[in-house]
Structures are given as C-alpha cells and as structure tokens.
C-alpha cells in the first residue's frame, strides 16, 4: 500500500479539527500505516502547527515558503507536486481550500480524485471503496476508486471521529527545500469580513429558520409572524439568500453564520450538510418539510411532514392564543 499523507488545515498557528479526523480516515484505509502530515505555511505559525500535530503522526513534513503564508491553493498545488513521492494517497479536508486545491492536484499527480467522502469501507486489491452523498444528501452512493497510481481524497469535515493522539511523537522533517520557487498567477489581496446585519441570529435562543420550501419572497412574512409571536429571529438556508429573499447575515451554515440556539425550527429546509454545519450546541431541532425523505428528518428531534406555508400560520395562531391567555 502507498504512503498516506494528510493535509493539515490551520489558522493562526492552530491546526483545525480535521487533522485528527483525517488520521482516522487514513487508518480506515490502512490500519498498519502511520500517516504523514503535510504542513504548509511560513514563519512561526508553521512551526507551532508542526509541533502540535506530532502526537498524531509518525512524520510531519514541514513545507515552509514565504509565498505560502496565506493559504493559496494554486501555490500549494505546485508545492505538493514537487514534494510528494509517486503513488501517494493524499487526504484533504473538503472545505473551501480543499475544493480549490484537490481536483487540479489529482490531475498534476496523475492520480485518481474522490471528492467529499463521508465514510471508507476498505480496500480490495487496488480499489478503495468509499461512501459519498449525492443530490444534496438525499441519497448515498458507494464509490470505488483505483488507487494504484495514487489518489487525492477529499474528506468531509466532521464525517470521521478524531483519532486520539499516539504515545510517541512523530518526527518533523523539513521539506521546504524541495518546493523551490513558486510562481503566482492568482494573487491574494484581502479578506472582506461578513457584515453582521440588523438582526444578529447568533444571539437568539430560538430560530425560525426558513429554506426553499417557503417558495417565494412574500412568504417570508409567514415566518416573521411566527418569530415575532415567539420572540425569536428568522434565519435561513443558502437558497433563500441566493434568491435574495433575506440578506446574507441571516444565513446559517458553513458559508454563513454558526448559531447555538436552544430551539431550531427548520422550515422547508432540506438539510444539506453545509447548512447543518452551522448549527452547534445540539439545539432541540424541529423540522417541518413536505418531503418525508428530506435529509433534515435524519437529524431532527421532531419532524412534521407538512407544507410549511400551511403549518406555520397554524403554529403562530397557537402561540398567539397562548400569549393571549397568559396576558389575562
């Protein structure tokens, strides 16, 4: 079996949780091989990260280069093509950086590419068998991949349990000299931080969160009435922002806000993993969706198979009745 590498995502000198998760994924491919970490960056941060992941790996490869001080996938790809041995199996977190890096990396390494895997079922001869999701998580697929000439495998963050640290610390090997000069055709300029918006959905203990099931912009008022009755805020999933029914600051998910409410009402939201990634703190999750097979029902505590446009006004009425009674 080929050598297995794990790309370490890190920020401000701290490795992300995916580091330990991808070690688990590597063990699922081959329990006998201790994987090697790939840490790219520059300056003091990269040394801190190398040191911090030593307990997880047999070897930690340091890829230091000033051009890599900001994680630019175009440069990282060049660096990896030069540093990696043939037939490598490279595990990468399937985040905005991995999506940028990996398809081209697989082409340049002349190896297979499997994106966004959620489970590994094992290896038979040269075929690795993995699980992916399609159609926004509505259905799963077994996929097999010929790894005989190496593979780049993007692993969904959170899909694997973090591997506990080993008792023996791995050795740090400085591979920076292998990288050489990196040429830039895509130059990072700046990061524009998201605006917080008029309503801060991260501060509310109850969220009435709406999705595509609201069907049109005018129907958002139905959710707003419920939120007002409950003393809650209206948040949403990505398609609602794409359609310009609500502003970006209301979006929950990996490309939106991370929220930690006590109660989360998912109204006409299918439950794509990018949306669920923004819901933390294990809230009581109530899902209303007319599609009984919507993935949201797999993660919700309570589900109602109904049209949100009919159900929400009924719920609003009940809340108003209760408020009316308690006001007396």
């Amino acid at each position: 079996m080929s050598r297995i590498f794990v790309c370490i995502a890190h920020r401000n000198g701290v490795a992300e949780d995916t580091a330990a998760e991808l070690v688990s994924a590597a063990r699922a491919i081959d329990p006998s091989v201790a994987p090697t970490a790939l840490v790219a960056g520059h300056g003091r941060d990269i040394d801190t990260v190398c040191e911090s992941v030593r307990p997880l790996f047999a070897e930690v490869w340091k890829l230091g280069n000033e051009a890599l001080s900001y994680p630019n996938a175009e440069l990282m790809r060049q660096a990896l093509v030069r540093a990696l041995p043939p037939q490598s199996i490279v595990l990468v977190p399937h985040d905005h950086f991995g999506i940028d890096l990996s398809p081209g990396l697989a082409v340049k390494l002349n190896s297979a590419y499997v994106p966004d895997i959620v489970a590994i079922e094992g290896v038979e001869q040269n075929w690795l068998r993995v699980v992916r999701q399609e159609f926004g998580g509505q259905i799963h697929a077994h996929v097999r991949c010929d790894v005989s000439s190496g593979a780049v495998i993007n692993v969904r963050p959170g899909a694997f349990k973090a591997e506990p640290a080993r008792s023996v610390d791995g050795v740090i090997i400085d591979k920076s000299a292998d990288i050489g000069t990196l040429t830039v055709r895509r130059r990072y300029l700046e990061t524009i931080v998201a605006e917080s918006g008029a309503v801060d959905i991260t501060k509310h203990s109850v969220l009435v969160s709406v999705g595509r099931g609201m069907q049109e912009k005018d129907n958002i008022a139905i959710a707003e009435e419920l939120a007002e009755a409950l003393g809650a805020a209206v948040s949403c999933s990505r398609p609602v922002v794409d359609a310009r029914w609500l502003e970006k600051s209301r979006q929950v998910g990996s490309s939106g806000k991370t929220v930690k409410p006590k109660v989360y009402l998912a109204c006409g939201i299918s439950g794509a993993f990018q949306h669920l990634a923004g819901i933390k703190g294990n809230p009581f999750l109530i899902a209303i969706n007319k599609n009984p097979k919507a993935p949201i029902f797999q993660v919700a505590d309570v589900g109602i198979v109904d049209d949100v446009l009919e159900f929400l006004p009924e719920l609003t009425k009940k809340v108003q009745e209760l408020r009316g009674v308690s006001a007396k």
Partner: protein
Amino acid sequence: MEILVCVKRVPDTSENEIELNAAGNDIERDELVYSINEPDNYAVEEALQIRDRVGGNVTVVTVGSEDDEEVLRRQLAMGANQAFLLYDEAFEGSDGRGIATILKEFVLKGHYDLILTGVQADDGAAQVGGMLAAMLDYPFASLVNSIEVDSSKLRIGREIEGGNREISEIDLPCVLSIQTGINEPRYVGMRGIRQVASVPIATFGTGELNVDEALVGAGAAKVKRVDYFVPVLGKSAEILSGSREANAEKVLELIAAKGGLK
C-alpha cells in the same frame, strides 16, 4: 472577451424526490424532471453580464447526449451566442476526469479568455473546473461569487468560511467555478426558447475533437459509482402524526419545554 461556460443537465431536486429504484442500484429515473444545474445557470448569467459590459461572445458547451440539447437551447434563449454538444459513444461512462479531458480538447479547438463552470452539480463533486484548469495549465479559482474585469486580469471574490470573502487577482486565461447567488439569473420563458428553436447546435465527437479514447469513457474511469443506497440511521426524528392543529399544539409544548418561550 471570449467566454466559455460548461454546463450540465441534472435532475431538478427542487421538483423531484430522489428515490432508489426497485432494484436498489440506481435512482428512480422515470418521470424525473430535468433542468440545468443551478450553479451553471448562475455561471451563464455571469458570462452574459461580463460580455454585455466588455464585449465578446458567450459559448456554452455540455458533454452529454441528445437529451441535453434542451439545456443548451435554454442558455441560447438566455442570450448565449452559440452552443455545442460534445457527444460520442466513446465518451459514455466517463468519470470527472474523463469529462474534463473531453472539455480540454474542445477548449483547444477555440480561443477562450475565460472559462466558467458551476461550482458543483448533482453529484456534489465540484471537480471538473479544477481538473480542466490543471489540464490546460490555466490558473483556477473555485466558489467564485464576484468578478470584476481589469484588462488582462480579473479581480475575483471567493466564498470562504463564515460568509467572509477572499479577494484575489487572477490572470487570464483562467477557469473559475461559480457559486450560486453571484447574480440574479434572468428569466427564460417558453417564448424565448421558441425563438432559438432553429439555431443550430453542433455536435462534436471523436471525429471533431482530438480526444485520446484511452483517456475517456467507462474503461478509463478510475472512479466508479457502484450503487446508490439509503443508509440505515440510528437516530432520526420522531414524526408527529396528528392533525395539523394537534401537531402545532405539540410543537408549541415542546418549544416551551425547551425554554424557548420567553
């Protein structure tokens, strides 16, 4: 600017419930409603807006079969200048890399300053744009949610975590994968589609494209889907089965019990 947009026709998940077929090895494809992959539609709209600002042409292309002509026709109705269908028996069963290989040969027949794809399609792979860029040795950026043209380069925004945007400068020619929400795609009515009904759509196969048949099709695919399945999950929601009114009452009780009523 000469802009190429690579598009795909996919089952429309907002119109369909995706289910396993009786044999349990594929999705139930009878009666599926198909449409253009949503991110691809944003990519075409973006290309049209850039063309209308700086001049040039928008070409749309898909790797598929006769059935896929309808999405090309739709993009012509949106305002694309020309459309091509890449079809050959030898292309069938290609994996993402095979598709990128076919597209690469199409790109090399023309001259494009900018190539756009949607960020991902029905299989959620998000791979063809990045592979195509690597094969052409063009710079690439994924998850692009803004584009400004500045002569021989572009100023682009990428969607990164937490709703933040990463701003970069990228040289032309390049490949960008477009995220949904970058613009508001124009509406296409039946009338618009009828108006382009007679516009010819050329089909290119191995005769027209310099594709090495050893690199495409099912035989070359290193990544193969074995089957579809619905996982058995430990935890799933308790489904309330009462009347609408009873369910609403129950939900209200639960919200109150969880401390959600102030």
